[in-house]
């Protein structure tokens, strides 16, 4: 069981909280991610959303997704076409919301990854490998294993439950 991702690095800093990923004031008007994705990370960088290309990978520093447990912070990233988030560390709620929506969270050293670098990622083994083909460097990250990996492979918690046939107590 392996998952491979490939894409362009989009650099962010430390402590990107879920309000920064999508402002609560935007959620007031709609919860439709196809609309909300226009405002992705606007508090951090108003030009970010317009510059996102499908298969971009978010690369952040420490404590990505801290703050509110709102799941739309993960689903709006998915709606923007981003398949994975790399960070030195994650908040627990964001980490789980990501997995439950098929967004791959990768905990690894991100300091040397630059904006625009090409990344190739493999997970499913004992460690996650992140190859930066722009710099030639490879870092390893914390493995995603067990049921977490199965949920990711299923594309999220809902498809996982349906596949596993777990509907009731």
């Amino acid at each position, binding site marked *: 069981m392996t998952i491979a991702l490939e894409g362009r690095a989009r650099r962010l800093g430390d*402590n990107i909280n879920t309000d920064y990923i999508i402002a609560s004031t935007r959620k007031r008007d709609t919860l439709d991610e196809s609309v909300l994705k226009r405002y992705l990370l606007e508090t951090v960088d108003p030009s970010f959303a317009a510059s996102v290309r499908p298969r971009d990978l978010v690369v952040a520093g420490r*404590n990505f997704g801290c703050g*509110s*447990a709102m799941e739309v912070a993960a689903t709006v990233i998915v709606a923007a076409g981003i398949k994975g988030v790399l960070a030195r560390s994650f908040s627990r709620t964001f980490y*789980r919301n990501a997995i439950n929506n098929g967004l791959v969270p990768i905990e690894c050293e991100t300091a040397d990854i630059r904006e625009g670098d090409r990344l190739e990622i493999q997970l499913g083994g004992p460690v996650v490998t992140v190859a930066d083909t722009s710099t030639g460097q490879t870092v390893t990250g914390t493995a995603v294993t067990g049921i977490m990996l199965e949920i990711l492979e299923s594309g999220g918690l809902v498809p996982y439950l*349906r596949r596993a046939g777990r*509907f009731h107590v």
Partner: protein
Amino acid sequence: MSGMTITQKILARATGRASVAVGDIVEPAVDLAMSHENAALVMNQFEEIFKGTSLTPTVWDPSKIAIVFDHRVPAESSKTATNQKKVREFVRAQRIARFHDVRGDEGGICHQVLAESGYDRPGSVIVGTDSHTTTHGALGAFAFGIGATEMAAVWALGRVLNVEVPATIKVVVSGDLAPWVGPKDIILSLIGRLTAEGANFRVIEFHGDTIEWMNTSGRLVLCNMAVEAGATSGIVPADDETVRFLRSEAAVTGELDLVCADPGAEYEEVVEINAATLAPQVACPHSVDHVQPVTAVEGRRIHQIVIGSCTNGRLDDLETAARILRGRRVSRDVRMLVFPASWRVYREAMERGYLADLVEAGAVVMNPGCGCCLGIHQGALGDGEVALSTTNRNFKGRMGNPNAEVYLCSPAVAAASALTGTISDPRY
């Protein structure tokens, strides 16, 4: 064998095991599953789980689900009103018992409503689609925030899948707090020390004589903001005060299981706080761990004061504010908004005259709700304005405007500052 922390003991029991070790992956049975308006999102995912099957989507146990409207009350738009209507219909169809609508007799902010309604029990597993679900650890429960999809699975299965047994940080607080220094100052100081990620994937267990002497209202403040250091949950060992609160303030009858840590419990880290020397603390923009003693930011001009939220809108918080403002006036340079944490708090504050004291001083008493704290329902800031608030987050844009700033503090600092229109030390 080494002993277990409170969290380990709760998770062992919730999984029918004699013991669990840190790092084990378990599927604890859930005793209480709470949502607010985002129950609408949970409903969507819940129905999605069953799509394409012949099964009727039915919650595992309607007596264990609580839904409390608090984020946008009363509805500010037709969209919110329609969402709330859909949730009401679901509540009725699924026979969900613990539903708190927009009502003056039983409504309020979910975390306060759960505590005062006697839904929180020591030793139980509580999940909520709200990060501040950590609050309920104040009554000895293992309580944590989850997303809407995870809650949908809980509604179906009655269990949380793949929960890692967390390591625990023991925080020992000792000494008597000085006048006008309180639980908010303890937790802000702790977050400043641990940083916003210092307790990620861990539980903070609170110990020490300051905690033993602290009432439940104060313990709720500590556990509420444990999540701002990244903690999965905060927890206070259940004791005589827990029993007193549950019996006399939450009308709980029946047996209570006061789960406590084993003497040989293993903690990843021990942090000691001397409460006696603690000054009032302020978290500065735009990060909750950017904490300074009030003396470092004294004199900063402010435009809006907020007392309220799941953190600091309880009766003793309003009492503190009323004591400071009684017979005096809120500065003309500032507007002051007060959001009691629940309608029970509102009614008691009304009966005791606190609300009259606050309104006569110039404060505006709002209906209970959390919308102001996250900038989605009243109390927004103007460009360039600065708020001083007893709420729990000060991220850029949090109070509805990215061109504004929010400082976080205790009710005493907030009320003292209301008199001057600048950040002020309540001790002087």
